[in-house]
């Protein structure tokens, strides 16, 4: 089966891209393809710990991201330079992820069959 890459580069809450990506990932995981989720650029903000949407009243996307392993979506990669440029470290994230550098990201792209962009 084709290896799919879900590429997130939009931050949470300002726009619905994260929500749309999450729904697409869950709908796709049913087919059990090789599936990688990449958080790059502002997309790394999707996984920041301690998101509290109570006051704003919007959807609690972070809780949904946390549940990914339950759906056996476990190949999660975060672009390290994007994280560093935003003052974040892997300890700031709510999921166990693989941090990759530019060369590893280039290799990942060359390795997948189709890319879905959010």
């Amino acid at each position, binding site marked *: 089966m084709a290896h799919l890459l879900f590429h997130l580069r939009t931050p949470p809450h300002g726009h619905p891209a994260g929500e*749309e990506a999450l729904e*697409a990932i869950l709908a796709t995981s*049913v087919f059990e393809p090789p599936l990688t989720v990449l958080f790059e650029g502002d997309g790394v903000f999707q996984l920041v710990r301690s998101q509290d949407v109570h006051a704003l009243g919007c959807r609690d996307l972070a809780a949904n991201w946390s549940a990914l392993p339950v759906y056996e979506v476990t190949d999660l990669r975060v672009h390290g330079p994007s994280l560093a440029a935003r003052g974040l470290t892997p300890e700031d994230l709510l999921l166990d992820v693989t941090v990759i550098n530019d060369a590893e990201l280039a290799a990942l792209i060359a390795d997948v069959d189709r890319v879905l962009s959010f």
Partner: protein
Amino acid sequence: MRIAIVVRSGPASSQSSRSALRFTQAVLDAGHDVHRVFFHGDGTYNANTLSVVPQDEEDLSASWAALGREHDLDLVICVASALKRGMLDASEADRYERPAASVRPEFVISGLGQLADAALDADRMVTFGG
């Protein structure tokens, strides 16, 4: 070659719908197959039958519908995105007690499984908008 196309922006809000339409036409002109056009998020607005476009501007929604009829394209709008944006077919309008359908008959409302299927089955997938 089978090419799937994803549209993520509305016709009145971004150039991306126009780009996707021109690309889809070029794919057909080159003799390739359009596997499916999947409209996600704001892309679902492309199915709107209520929009009234000024006469000196192209009605992109009508152009999508015409291209779909001409080439028997599978034009699918994401149900989750569509409902939030008031894009309803007759059965959804009935179920949610809304006064009318707002989706053109050339478009089909379906789930994200159709996006997954397109990604897995097509030879290429190209995303517009976002």
